[in-house]
């Protein structure tokens, strides 16, 4: 099937006359003018098109994350602050007490028995020391 074929005699009257044909062709081409654009062919075109399409979304996400990061850094968590404040004095206290302790108060490291890992040497050493 093709648009190009000889017309039978009976349907000749249905054919558009030359004037109508030209006018209609012109109308169709004028209406189609804006639709006949060269589409994207190269990967650069496609990338550019996608980039421009995704740009607002990326910008929105960046702003949201930026605001979130700013909020976290600007206003610390009160609970964490309280915890830090609770821990700080005890550390200071230990730091202050430690110099006051005599060297004999502290158990010599060699006598420490690791209860989690009992072995023969450690038990004998403990017995020897305690005797």
């Amino acid at each position, binding site marked *: *099937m*093709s*648009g*190009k*074929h*000889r*017309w*039978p*005699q*009976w*349907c*000749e*009257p*249905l*054919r*558009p*006359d030359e*004037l*109508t*044909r030209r*006018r*209609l*062709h012109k*109308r*169709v*081409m004028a*209406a*189609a*003018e804006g*639709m*006949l*654009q*060269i*589409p994207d062919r190269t990967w650069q075109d496609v990338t550019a098109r996608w980039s421009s399409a995704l740009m607002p979304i990326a910008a929105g996400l960046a702003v949201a994350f930026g605001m979130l990061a700013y909020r976290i850094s600007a206003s610390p968590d009160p609970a964490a602050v309280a915890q830090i404040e609770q821990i700080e004095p005890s550390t200071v206290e230990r730091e202050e007490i430690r110099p006051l302790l005599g060297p004999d108060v502290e158990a010599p490291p060699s006598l420490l028995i690791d209860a989690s890992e009992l072995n023969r040497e450690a038990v004998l050493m403990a017995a020897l020391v305690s005797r």
Partner: protein
Amino acid sequence: MAPETPATSADTGTSGHDASAGAKRDDKGADEPGLVAAVQNGDSEAFSKLVARYMDPAYAVALSILRHEQDAEDAVQASFIRALDRIGQLRPGSRFGPWFYRVLRSTCLNLRRRELLRSHSEVPEAAQSGHDPHREFERRQARARVLKALERLPERQRTAVMMYDLEGYDHAEIAKILEIAVGTSRANLYHGRQALRKILSERGETG
């Protein structure tokens, strides 16, 4: 259902063109897939070629459905634009014709259904063309006779005659589209043309 008729007798139904019927069907629009691909890439020249190729049959089909010249023009224009808008739906290698005629028929039926046709019915049609008024009158008379004759044909004969003679399908294509046997398509065409000739001759038109 009409009895099946041999090909030779079916194709002798209308004088003046049947001898070339086989030859004209040889042109299958071999370059059409290339044109369609070019249009899909935005080639306006390829689109212009398709428009020129399908202008006449599209106008005739639209006229036979809408029976109003200005409406037929509007429908043809809208169909070409609609087809261009959706040309991306055509797979590579597909033919434009069958798909375009579906778009055209749908557009015509929508136009008719919505009754958007009344606005320009008041325009005097003779004033729209720059032809000799007498010749224009005769042409319109002949056109009206053919349209009325077509209207009187049984549906299957009218479909066969229009698809074969106006749209340029061959019998194998008509049989496939309408889901009938090829012989049935030949018979419908034969009887349709005979009936058409008879109706037109009754009115003093030899067709």
